[in-house]
């Protein structure tokens, strides 16, 4: 058998450039930051300082695009880094990809509505059909000759309702 050509016998450069790792970490941190920073700031039972809130809204507003771009970049870098990565390196890559994917997905979902479901298609009923107790509180609105009541027990759960009374669009909130 002839000897293999020299370039096969040469050991391959087993390590990818450390700069690729730096790039990977940067894009992983970017993706995570765009989801986790606003999620942490805008958390229930947490105090929101005005500047932190502003930063949170700015991050959340912009999050869909940067999290997607960063996630794609992380996946591409992983393709390059995976073959030569050590066991630890692979663990890091895998773990980071999970966080990055999670961030890109969560940046597109409104998890606040998982806690308090909206009413997509509000139905109304006559007073005689209601099982509400006379002492229960409601919010009442009159527009033109139209009277509508929104039981507080319902609104305290849904929080926001988009309604139209007599052609006037209103947002009912509690």
């Amino acid at each position, binding site marked *: 058998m002839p000897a293999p050509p020299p370039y096969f016998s040469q050991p391959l450069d087993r390590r990818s450039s450390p700069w690729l790792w730096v790039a990977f970490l940067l894009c992983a941190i970017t993706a995570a930051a765009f989801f986790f920073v606003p999620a942490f700031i805008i958390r229930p039972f947490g105090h929101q300082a005005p500047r932190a809130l502003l930063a949170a809204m700015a991050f959340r507003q912009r999050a869909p695009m940067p999290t997607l771009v960063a996630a794609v970049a992380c996946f591409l870098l992983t393709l390059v880094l995976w073959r030569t990565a050590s066991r630890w390196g692979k663990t890091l890559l895998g773990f980071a990809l999970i966080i990055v994917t999670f961030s890109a997905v969560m940046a597109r979902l409104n998890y606040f509505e998982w806690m308090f479901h*909206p009413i997509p298609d509000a139905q109304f009923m006559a007073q005689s059909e209601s099982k509400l107790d006379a002492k229960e509180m409601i919010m009442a609105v009159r527009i033109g000759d139209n009277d509508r009541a929104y039981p507080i027990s319902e609104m305290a759960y849904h929080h926001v309702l988009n309604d139209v009374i007599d052609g006037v*669009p209103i947002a009912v909130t509690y």
Partner: protein
Amino acid sequence: MNGRALHFYLAGINNQNFLMRDKETGSWWQQITGKAIYGPLQGAVLKLVLSDELTFGQWRTESPSGELLAPVAKYTKEYESDWEPKVAKMPVVISFPGTELKSRDIVIGLTIDGGDRAYPWEAFAKQSPVVDRVNGTPLLLVLGPDGKSFRVFLSRIDGHDAEFFLQADAKDWILVDATTASQWNFQGCATSGPAQGKCLARIPALKDYWFDWRNYHPDTTIYKH
């Protein structure tokens, strides 16, 4: 907003007052003020629609043909009619020490002529009807016949400041004004006497926790009597 209907969804929380965003522009709106605090519509303010917090019983007598939001079958288990004591025990994330009110004391908050005032619910309920002035404007705050509903009116009849009191010996809930001795109902309309047929102007007011009202109305005064 500017002739365009916006649709809102719950999007976050700001010191226990929620934030909503509109589907059309993605702007962020503060619940209590109706103001866009971030996004393309930042600075815009939604027009407040006058609303009431009444008992179902009171509303039924006033608006017999009115319709009610139906419960959503899927979520009826989540609705709680006794949520108030539970929420009252929840922690607060901001507080304003140095005032005589506790964070979760309930107040009626109102803004008139640029002046904000909070009426502690307990004092109001004991004293109702309350006649007060904010920046010179005479106000009338009344607790309803059910002891739970409330309304706020401009305390003026035909441009003249008026005083009101509850008719003590009456079986029914009747408000009487000191000037014309006309009888008024809880909707602020005179049902008999010289003023019959007239109605007082309504003033929007919000039943709120003290900490929340104070947070968004830092210059608010507190009613004392």
